[in-house]
């Protein structure tokens, strides 16, 4: 801290010595195309060279009448002009891009913007046009298939969810933190200057100008203990540089097709009825029939009961069964509960400049009606940034970003899940489209006759619940920024920034009397006595409010220097201190017996008092605490950081960066809270050497970096921690309870990630071929891992520093210009390779069960995510049961087959569970005003486990995979099938064995046609340009190594729905 103050003081005293000149001209260098400022541009004047600052400005001090100025920048045509003192004191210079512009970018780290030719680290830059090639509402999802090194893990992404925000887990450069909590393995997201900790769906992609992905240590170590998983920096649109007001307006309409449920690989409803008949004859449903909670039974089973009891005639039963057999619940779902989703997006962007200030304004509105009926979503965004310049050397920046998102949902509408629907042949509506009650919690025959007509309607009609949207989620996300930058000299400035983030998330649910949930609660709390109903659970609506507030304070003081000497030496550096504190608090309440018309609700209710449940359908119940337990979380960080780079003659660059972090990790001695992380990097712009003169290679750069970043998890603790719970209502007891939250782990350490990166950027054949390649080695020490514990400890699993892993990989991207005349055709080739393996393991091998299911490998020296499976011993020729191999002999001893004695080498090792190689090919064709581009992605070098029949799902979920038809049925079948026989009672061990055996493992390699986009742009008038586009996404599989018909990323047979979009953009 003292060093920092000293640095400031020195800097201040130095300014006084600075000599003044007679005439000075303020130059702003902008890109001609969009008026965007160009920082770090070299301006040569009289044999001296100057650099523009981050806003593209430089002040030239002229000591003679006229002087020649030359502006050179890679990727731009050289500008030469004469500057005179008699000219205007403000000069704007517009740079014109050269055709190929692979290097002409400024990567942002969130602390500074670095011209790419000075960057020693591995940065990937996604510019505005590439970012806007996709049309989704989630900014991070737009990165899929256009970047290298970034893997989108779509295991949990489903086509049938119909929800809005599909947020696949993203992993940069192989594995990082392994936690059940998906977000913890995602890269750190930086919005402009500070970490963004809100919901990514609150960011309007139209506000974002570009994205930089920081991959290696030289790039990320400035973010220290948060950067272990990589960093993604989102940079908002800049305040305008050009005089006057410029802007754009755009709109997009997207249609997402209904999911194709008929593609789900299940047996026909009629065949499922036969399965139910079989189970009925075995007495499978008899205990459900006598269960006092009257659990729901399927319509077919009800008919079998009627047949057994003789309550219906055989003819009637057969007629009804025949009707059931002809029905398919998927048809009704598709017809009544799914639709083609519609998404509208509107965006407005204005920017401009006046004498002393510059501004940008973005506004957006999205409206979405997703595929699942009963849901809708709206989002409004506004962002304003103003840069005010009271004097030449002070910039005061203020900005405000506000978003309001509202999602409404009908929670009681069923979803057709991948695990099937309980009653595969049920109808949701009659032929006239009227809602039909279906079994849900209780047998229909029970609720039809119980209650002497005094209870509320107890039927559940999914279609009626569609219109009843009880839940509204309203989220307001506000970010205020203020910053002041003071330039003491042209090469030294001080930057103070403060950000305040405020998120208010309110979930409001009003379950009125029409809602099944409310009717069910009231009925369960009803007691019928002497022909009247006593409502133990108050009669009325149920109102549920949950509030979540979070506030973040982020502050940073930073000193920047940027100095050149004698045209050859460049030093850039920054030194700073920052803190952040993020508090979140939640609370909530439930009001029962609520009347939404008068806002009245009953008082004096004993919430803990147990009441008898109607007809003893459940044990005693109680209304329960009206107040939800409150939470209050607070995370605090403090950091010092510094970064310096020196470049000699624009040929050699070395850089280093250091950061020290501390946080309020619970229960860790303060001394352990500080953890220093650092990196060094170097760069050689070989093509700038005088000896470098080849015709075939126009640019060549070599980069190397080495360093550390880290990961911290504040939810973990080194001491035993209790979490207080509200008194348990069901037990009458008013005493407060506490639960042991996590096991203390005094040895808890921060994850430390070491990165080594070698990079090469090249341009060949007059830049007809250009690209970059990065080769990295990543080693993570003390990886957080959730490990299962010996239950004798009292703890089932805990997070420990479980393993050291090593990873290596390659990111390669090449752009080729194939044809470059009237027709322009270029191709982007993306290739990523990543392999991660276990270096050291701190947990012991615990048998094959862990290895065959998803999780971190325990075998040292082996892949971190391997696909292991049980060796297959064929089906038992007598019974059709699955068999494994035990000591080379077929065996049905499933316990022995999965016992600890089974070593990894006794299993089948297929390869990696995650793709080792992936990439894409994007072709762009331009002719006059038209352009066409198509993106094809591919993944290779991995295996997945396809879905097959699981007999416990057959029993409990109404789901029978179509492999059922290929099951073993008689001796001899084992020669032609691997699908086990249906044996009742079901052996869960055999099921698990089959599901994890080698016969279900398939190669995941595939090629997928992501999208095709067509653009037409034209100039309507001098100042008005228009762009029209059409796009189709998720088009479909081109080739798959697996013949299972299942998509390898999520083992689902229902394909992701196609999306068709069209839109326009006006630039003025």
């Amino acid at each position, binding site marked *: 801290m003292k060093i920092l103050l000293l640095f400031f003081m020195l800097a201040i005293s130095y300014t006084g010595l600075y000599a003044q000149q007679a005439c000075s001209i303020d130059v702003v260098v902008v890109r001609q195309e969009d008026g965007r400022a160009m920082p770090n541009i070299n301006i040569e004047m009289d044999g001296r060279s100057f650099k523009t600052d981050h806003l593209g400005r430089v002040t030239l001090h002229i000591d003679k009448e006229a002087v020649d100025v030359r502006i050179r920048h890679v990727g731009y045509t050289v500008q030469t002009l004469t500057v005179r003192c008699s000219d205007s004191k403000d000069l704007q210079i517009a740079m014109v891009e050269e055709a190929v512009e692979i290097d002409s970018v400024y990567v942002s780290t969130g602390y500074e913007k670095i011209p790419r030719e000075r960057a020693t680290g591995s940065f990937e830059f996604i510019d505005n046009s590439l970012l806007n090639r996709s049309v989704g509402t989630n900014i991070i999802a737009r990165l899929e298939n256009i970047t290298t090194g970034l893997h989108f893990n779509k295991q949990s992404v489903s086509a049938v969810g119909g929800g809005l925000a599909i947020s696949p887990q993203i992993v940069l450069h192989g594995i990082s933190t392994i936690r059940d909590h998906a977000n913890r393995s995602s890269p750190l997201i930086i919005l402009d200057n500070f970490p963004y900790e809100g919901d990514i769906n609150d960011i309007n992609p139209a506000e974002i100008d570009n994205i930089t992905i920081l991959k290696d240590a030289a790039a990320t170590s400035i973010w220290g203990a948060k950067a272990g998983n990589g960093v993604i920096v989102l940079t908002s649109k800049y305040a305008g540089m050009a005089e006057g007001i410029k802007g754009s307006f755009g709109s997009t309409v997207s249609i997402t097709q209904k999911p194709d449920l008929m593609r789900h690989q299940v047996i026909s409803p009629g065949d499922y009825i036969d399965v139910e008949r079989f189970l009925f004859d*075995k*007495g*499978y449903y*008899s*205990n*459900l029939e*006598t*269960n*006092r909670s009257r659990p729901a039974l399927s319509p077919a089973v009800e008919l079998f009961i009627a047949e057994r009891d003789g309550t219906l005639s055989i003819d009637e039963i057969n007629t009804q069964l025949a009707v059931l057999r002809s029905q398919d619940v998927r048809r009704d779902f598709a017809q009544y509960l799914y639709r083609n989703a519609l998404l509208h997006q509107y965006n407005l962007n204005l920017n401009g400049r006046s004498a002393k200030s510059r501004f940008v304004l973005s506004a957006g509105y999205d409206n979405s009606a997703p595929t699942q009926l009963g849901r809708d979503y709206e989002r409004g965004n506004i962002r304003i940034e103003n840069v*005010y310049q009271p004097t030449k050397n002070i910039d*005061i920046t203020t900005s405000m970003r506000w978003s309001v998102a509202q999602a409404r949902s009908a929670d009681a509408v069923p979803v057709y899940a991948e695990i099937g629907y309980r009653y595969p042949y049920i109808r949701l509506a009659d032929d006239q489209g009227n809602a039909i009650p279906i079994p849900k919690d209780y047998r229909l025959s029970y609720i039809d006759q119980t209650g002497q007509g005094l209870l509320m309607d107890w039927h559940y009609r999914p279609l009626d619940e569609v219109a009843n949207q009880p839940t509204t989620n309203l989220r307001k996300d506000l970010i205020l920024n*203020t910053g002041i930058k003071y330039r003491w000299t042209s090469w030294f400035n001080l930057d103070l920034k*403060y950000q305040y983030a405020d998120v208010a998330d309110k979930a409001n649910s009003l379950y009125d009397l029409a809602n099944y949930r409310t009717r069910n609660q009231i009925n369960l709390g009803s007691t019928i006595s002497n022909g009247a109903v006593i409502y133990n659970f108050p009669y009325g609506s149920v109102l549920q409010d949950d509030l979540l507030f979070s506030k973040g304070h982020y502050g940073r003081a930073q000193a920047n220097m940027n100095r050149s000497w004698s045209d050859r030496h460049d030093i850039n550096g920054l030194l700073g*201190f920052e803190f952040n504190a993020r508090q979140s608090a939640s609370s909530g309440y439930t009001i029962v017996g609520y009347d939404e018309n008068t806002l009245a609700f009953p008082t004096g209710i004993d919430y803990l008092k147990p009441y008898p449940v109607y007809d*003893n359908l459940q*044990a*005693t119940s109680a209304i329960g605490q009206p107040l939800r337990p409150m*939470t*209050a*979380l*607070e*995370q*605090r960080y*403090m950091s010092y950081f510094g970064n310096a780079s020196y470049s000699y003659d624009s040929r050699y660059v070395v850089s280093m960066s250091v950061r020290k972090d*501390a*946080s*309020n990790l*619970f229960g860790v001695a*303060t001394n352990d*809270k500080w953890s220093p992380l650092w990196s060094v990097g170097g760069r050689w712009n070989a093509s700038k050497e005088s000896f470098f003169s080849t015709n075939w290679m126009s640019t060549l750069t070599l980069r190397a970096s080495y360093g550390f970043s880290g990961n911290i998890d504040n*939810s973990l*603790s080194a001491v035993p*921690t*209790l*979490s207080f719970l509200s008194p*348990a209502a069901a*037990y009458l007891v008013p*005493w407060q*309870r*506490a639960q*042991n939250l996590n*096991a*203390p782990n005094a040895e808890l350490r921060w994850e430390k990630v070491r990165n080594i990166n070698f990079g090469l950027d090249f341009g060949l054949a007059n830049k007809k071929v250009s690209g970059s390649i990065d080769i990295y080695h990543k080693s993570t020490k003390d990886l957080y891992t959730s490990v*299962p*514990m*010996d*239950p*004798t*400890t*009292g*703890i*089932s699993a805990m997070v420990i520093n479980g393993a050291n892993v090593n990873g290596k990989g390659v990111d390669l991207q090449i752009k080729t210009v194939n044809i470059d005349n009237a027709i322009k055709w270029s191709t982007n080739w993306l290739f990523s390779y990543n392999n991660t393996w276990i270096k050291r393991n701190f947990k012991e091998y615990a*048998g094959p069960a862990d290895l065959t299911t998803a999780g971190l490998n325990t075998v040292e020296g082996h892949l971190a995510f391997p696909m292991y499976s049980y060796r297959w011993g064929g089906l038992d020729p007598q019974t059709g049961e699955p068999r494994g191999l035990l000591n080379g002999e077929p065996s049905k001893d499933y*316990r022995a087959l999965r016992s600890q004695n089974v070593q990894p080498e006794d299993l089948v090792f297929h390869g990696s569970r995650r793709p080792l190689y992936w990439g894409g090919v994007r072709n762009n064709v331009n002719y006059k005003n038209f352009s066409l581009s198509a993106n094809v992605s591919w993944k290779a070098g991995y295996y997945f486990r396809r879905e097959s029949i699981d007999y*416990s799902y057959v*029993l409990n979920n109404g789901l029978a995979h179509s492999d059922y038809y290929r099951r073993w049925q008689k001796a001899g079948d084992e020669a032609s099938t691997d699908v086990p026989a249906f044996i009742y*009672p*079901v*052996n*869960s061990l055999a099921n698990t064995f089959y599901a994890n055996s080698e016969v279900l493992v398939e190669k995941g390699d595939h090629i997928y046609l992501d999208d095709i986009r067509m653009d037409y742009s034209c100039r309507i008038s001098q100042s008005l340009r228009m762009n029209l586009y059409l796009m189709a996404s998720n088009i479909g599989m081109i080739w798959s190594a697996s013949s299972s018909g299942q998509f390898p990323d999520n083992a689902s047979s229902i394909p992701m729905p196609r999306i068709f979009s069209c839109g326009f953009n006006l630039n003025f």
Partner: protein
Amino acid sequence: MFDILKRFCWFMCLAGLILSITSCEEYLDTKPDKKLATPATAKDLQAILDNIPRINEAETGLSEIASDNFFLPDANWSALIEVENRDAYLWKRSPVAELYWSYMYRKIYDVNLVLEHIDKVTYQSEGQKNSIYANALLVRGMAFQKLAEVFCVPYRRGVAAEDRLGVVLKRSADINEDLKRSTLEETHNQIKEDLTEAIKYLPDNPYDYPTRAAKGAGYAAMARYLLSIGDYTSAGYYADSSLALKSTLSDYNTVAQIPYPFEFYNVEIIYYSRSYAYRNLSEANARVDPLLYQSYEDDDLRKQLFFKVQADGYYSFIGDYSKANFEKFTGLTTAEMLLIRAECNARAGKLQEAEDDVITLLRKRYVSNFDFTGLDLQRDPDVLLRRIMLERRKELVGRGVRWSDIRRMSFEEDIRLERLLYDTSYVLDQGAIQDFAFLIPEAVIERGGYQQN
């Protein structure tokens, strides 16, 4: 504009404050979650012990699964999802479901944490400290007893048990502790020690709700334990001590003749606990042994209050004191204490006292005008004892104590258990009972490296 400058000044002041006045250490000492606490006050420890679902409930239901009070019809047995639970019903030598072990050790972890902090926190009174300390020990002692009952062979007082395997005696909250199975002798010494120490410090007066233990509960737990190892003299003494503190009985003549008739915290409950056994004991699946049902006389009110006839003609048990469907009440009651005292007195030859206790109980269980004079139980010690054993079965359905009765009786008489399933008979004969212990769950053996039974 001024606003911005003003805000900026504030920020500078704030930054200055943080930099100069507050040290970084203080800034970072804030708790990340306000609900979190390291156990620091008596309130914290008490709150751990009041976490009823973990401390009082989820007791292993294996002892009732292994007993002969209930049976599963063929179809209901087949409908059990988990193969472990189908096997446990047939006393198969295969590992049981993990919950039967892990839920017990979760209790033990919680109370060990309390015990480790017992001298590190502040109390309002000495009595509060004693109560927390003793309650924690009592829970641990009872948990070890329950575990020993199902995962160890029977223990007989005075019979050497150094060479038999006991349970894992987890006595600290340290999760890195190196553990192995104790000897049966060590296990039972630990149970006795925990219960004895608990009794010393338990408060005299009972709490408002029987989820916390007072002295009477300590005596009762000790009586139940001593009876299970055949230490009849001491068992009788402790049952008597417990009854001296509380002897209230619920008069079934005043209980309404409705399904699920019993109040949640029945007046005779000394200590509340409940077991969990998946669907094995659920009302819809499990049927009461017909012989047991027939042993209730028509004037016995329990015959109506406890049972409900099912479509297959057999009866389900609905007289549970916790009103639950899947779970079974396993707590301590004054009725059980009366029966223990009666049995111990009968074995000691105090026939009159024994008969008095039996009659005291039966008066509250039979119709009020029932004439007990004809019983004349004291005419023959054998008749008396047999009657007491019968009354134990009839009174303690579902409580888990039948299994320990079977185990101790296997050393006194030729007792055998039999299951009929799909016309196949599965038998556990006298010798097998004496040698029976469930197999420890696979995950425990694999992760803990313990010796299997």
